[in-house]
Every structure is written in C-alpha cells, then in structure tokens.
C-alpha cells in the first residue's frame, strides 16, 4: 500500500472523528452541561496532560497484565484447537461445552475467581485467558478443518505422516484464519484486563477508573477510556502487521 492510498483510507474516518469531537465540544458549551456529567473534549485533554505522570504507572500495570493474559490465552486457545482437531472424540464431546461456556459472562465469573485465587495476579490472568482463548480456539479449529482437499490428498499420496501433514500443510494453511481469531483476542484482552482490575486491584487503568468513579471525576474516567481505546487499537495494529508479514505470500487482491 503506498502513502497516497493509505491517506485515502485514513482521511474519511479522521474527518468523522474530528467532526464528532467538534459537535461534542460545541454541545457542552452551548447547553452548558455540567463538567461532572459530560466534560468537553478540551477539558479531557487538559486533564490528561495534567495527570499524565500518575497515569503512566497505571497504564504500564494494565499493559503488563494484558500482555501476559493475551499470550497465555492465545496459547491455550491454540492448544485446545490442536488437541480437539486431533482427537475427534474430544471435539465431539467438548466443542459444544466450550461454546456453551461462552454464555457465562466473564464479569460474573470474576468475583468467584477472586474468592478462589485471592487478589493477586492469577485470577486476573485467568479472566483474560477466558476471554482470549475462545476466539483463537474457534478460528484455529475452523482453519484446520478447511485444509485444501487437493493438497491433503497429495500429501497422503506421497506418504506424508500425520505430523508432516500437521506441520507442513494444516498449520500453515490455518494461519490466516488463526490470525483473525488472534486479532479479536487482542482487543478482548484489553477489556478482560480492565474488568479484572475493576473487581480487585491496587493499580492499573481499571483500578484508576473505580477510584475516579467514587469521586465523580467524569473527565478522568474519559481519560482512562481514551487510554483503553489507544491500547486496543495498538494491539489490533500489531496483530494486523504480523498478519501482513506472515501472509505475505497471498496475492494483493484477495488479502482481505
């Protein structure tokens, strides 16, 4: 993608965001909305600049927690997918349960995990793992199942072992699909980390939000939200870049 087409794909949403912020700013002054109900974008920006140093520590704590949870969750997801793919009986018996398990809201599980595992990092990692593993596992299983028939037939005819087929055909074939799951997991992991910090933590963006909520500092909550969005976008962009590099063999016109 050259600079010009990059610019062409960026400016329409950018204009929309700027317009949105302007209307927001205009509305807060025009209707004289109280700052503790809805602060204006300028107020939020000012607040962010003023409290930047204190927020940095919280951001780092959340980032650390999120990255650990994301890595573990992705690994667990891949492991589950590979195991279920190789043991059809397990897949038949467990796959429906895994899907059912997604109907249990994570936020409802979090307090339980706190009771069982205390207030340390473990229950928080478990919460993030729980939200991350599912999209990865489903995408990976789907990718493995869709392996090209002609290629599979070819590998069998030349006497490739199950291991050969897995390493040389099925996994590389599933990579684009796996990455689409990882992309979703990446953004979920931020949410998982914040929720985990809401329930019980002594640092992190989620903890910071709870603190500001109790003193009705709406502007500071908005700053926290902005940071969460920024982390989410960065995570997504990183995985997208990784995808671009790993799937570089595909012709440009069907990359999307």
């Amino acid at each position, binding site marked *: 993608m050259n600079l010009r087409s990059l610019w062409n794909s960026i400016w329409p949403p950018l204009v929309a965001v700027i317009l949105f912020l302007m209307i927001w700013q205009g509305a807060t002054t025009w209707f004289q909305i109280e700052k503790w109900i809805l602060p204006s974008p300028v107020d939020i920006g000012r607040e962010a600049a003023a409290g930047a140093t204190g927020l940095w520590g919280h951001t780092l704590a959340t980032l650390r927690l999120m990255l650990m949870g994301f890595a573990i969750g992705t690994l667990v997801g891949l492991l589950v997918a590979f195991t279920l793919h190789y043991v059809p009986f397990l897949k038949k018996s467990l796959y429906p349960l895994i899907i059912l398990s997604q109907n249990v809201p994570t936020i409802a599980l979090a307090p339980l995990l706190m009771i069982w595992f205390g207030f340390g990092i473990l229950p928080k990692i478990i919460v993030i793992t729980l939200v991350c593993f599912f999209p990865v596992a489903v995408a990976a299983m789907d990718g493995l199942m869709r392996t090209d028939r002609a290629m599979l037939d070819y590998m069998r005819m030349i006497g490739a072992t199950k291991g050969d087929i897995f390493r040389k055909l099925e996994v590389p074939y599933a*990579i684009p699909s796996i990455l689409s799951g990882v992309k979703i997991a990446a953004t979920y992991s931020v949410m998982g980390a914040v929720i985990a910090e809401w329930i019980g933590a002594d640092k992190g963006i989620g903890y910071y939000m709870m603190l500001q909520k109790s003193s009705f500092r709406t502007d500071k909550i908005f700053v926290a939200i902005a940071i969460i969005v920024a982390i989410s976008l960065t995570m997504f962009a990183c995985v997208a870049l990784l995808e671009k590099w790993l799937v570089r063999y595909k012709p440009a016109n069907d990359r999307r």
Partner: protein
Amino acid sequence: MSGHSPTPARSAVALEVQHINKTFRDRRKPVPVLNDISLSVHSGEFVSIIGPSGCGKSTLFHIIGGLTPPDQGEVLLRGLPVTGQRGHISYVPQQPALFPWRTVEDNVVLARDIAARGSERLPRSEVQGWLEKAGLGGFEKAYPHMLSGGMQQRASFLRGLMAPQEVMCLDEPFSALDALTRSEMQRWLLEMWEENKRAVLMITHSIDEALLLSDTIYLFSNRPASVLHTIKVPFPRPRREAIMEDPEFIRLKREISDRMAEQQRQSITTGK
C-alpha cells in the same frame, strides 16, 4: 545429474498391480469400480492408462498409493508386496496443489524432504539446476500464484521428479491446461522424461498424449473398469512431435478411438 541410484536393467518390473478388485458401497448398494485390473510398469518405462471419465482410474491410484485398500489383489514394487502401504510412489496430481505459502524452490523439494525424513537437505545449487531445466530459472523465490498454469504444472511435475521413489504416478497432469499450453507441456515432459527415464504410470484422456509419450498403453473399459486392451507403442526413442504425422501413429490413434467409441455406445445402450 539425476542423483538417483543407477537405472537397473530395463526388463526389471518396477510396479506391478495384480488382479485388483474394488467395490464401493453407496446406500448399501454395491458399486463395483475396478474389476480384475492387472498391469505392470518396468523400470524406465512410460505407461499410460486411457479410459472413459469416471471409470475409476483415480481409485486405482489411491490403491497404488496406499490410501484405499483393495478388496482383492496386490500391489508389488520390485516384487515386494506394498498393498496398503504409503510413501512408495512419487505423485503428480491433477491440480498442481503447490503450497501457496512456499516459494517455488521450497515447493519443489517438498516431496523429497518428506521422503527423506529430514535426513539431509538438497544443496540449493542442485535445486537451482533442476529449476532451470524446468524453465523456472529466476522464479526460485516467487510464490505459486505468480506463475502461469503451465509453469505451476511444471513445478508440480518437478516436485514429483525430485522425489526419490522410482515409480511416478501422473494423474491427468495436463487436463487443467489450455490446448496450446498442453501440447507445449507434452513436448517438455517428453524431453524431461527421456533425460531421466523414470518408471511412469500416467492417467490421461488424450489419445495423442498417450501415444506421443508412452511405451505401453492400457485401455480401460467403462465402470467397473477392466483392462480392455494393451497397446505397445512401437516408436523409437528419443521421440519428437513429428511422429504424430506418422501413418502408424494415425492408425493406432484410430484404433484406440474406435475402441473408445464402442465403449461409449455400449454405455449408452446399457443405460449406465
């Protein structure tokens, strides 16, 4: 250059298929597919199978490759029974089935690497030499989608040729190509094969292709397939395309197409 063990005496039988029978079950109704198929491929011999479409030739390949067990009969390689065992043949499929994430040079060594069980890797210079012979020089680092259909099929053939197994099975290797590319590929295959003299068993629909390339042609009947007729192709090697105008070539071509047409008629009258 070929890197394979020296070619054994011409008369040695590389692959033998003995009295293969296979019946599939479709909703409890037995569907006989192969009926007492016997054929042999000597080392350094090019053998073709011609038959009506859907006559079960691919099933025969699956049996030779060890994917499908036959109901009766045996597959022998150099006299040893290998029925139901995999990895004894090299294979060129109908679709090139190149792996899109591998570069051309990584694709052509795939079958060899799998057969070699990762013991030793082929030096890049040797791969380079093979690619140049196949007219793929300069495309080592290209991905398959960047190649034309003919080039993809050449890479697919090269992948089979570079595998260490003596017997190569070609499953309608040119059927997906347009007529022009196809005749170009036939010429190329003839040259490549005459240089390397592997034992080849090829399935094809094209009578011209079979006569041009083969030493022996097996004519298959309609389903359930049986060997209708065996033709020894008398033209000397090395062959050039010019033999296609030879009166004997034309006579053989007519003979085969007459027999095929007869099969076609029979299948219509019996309502199959």
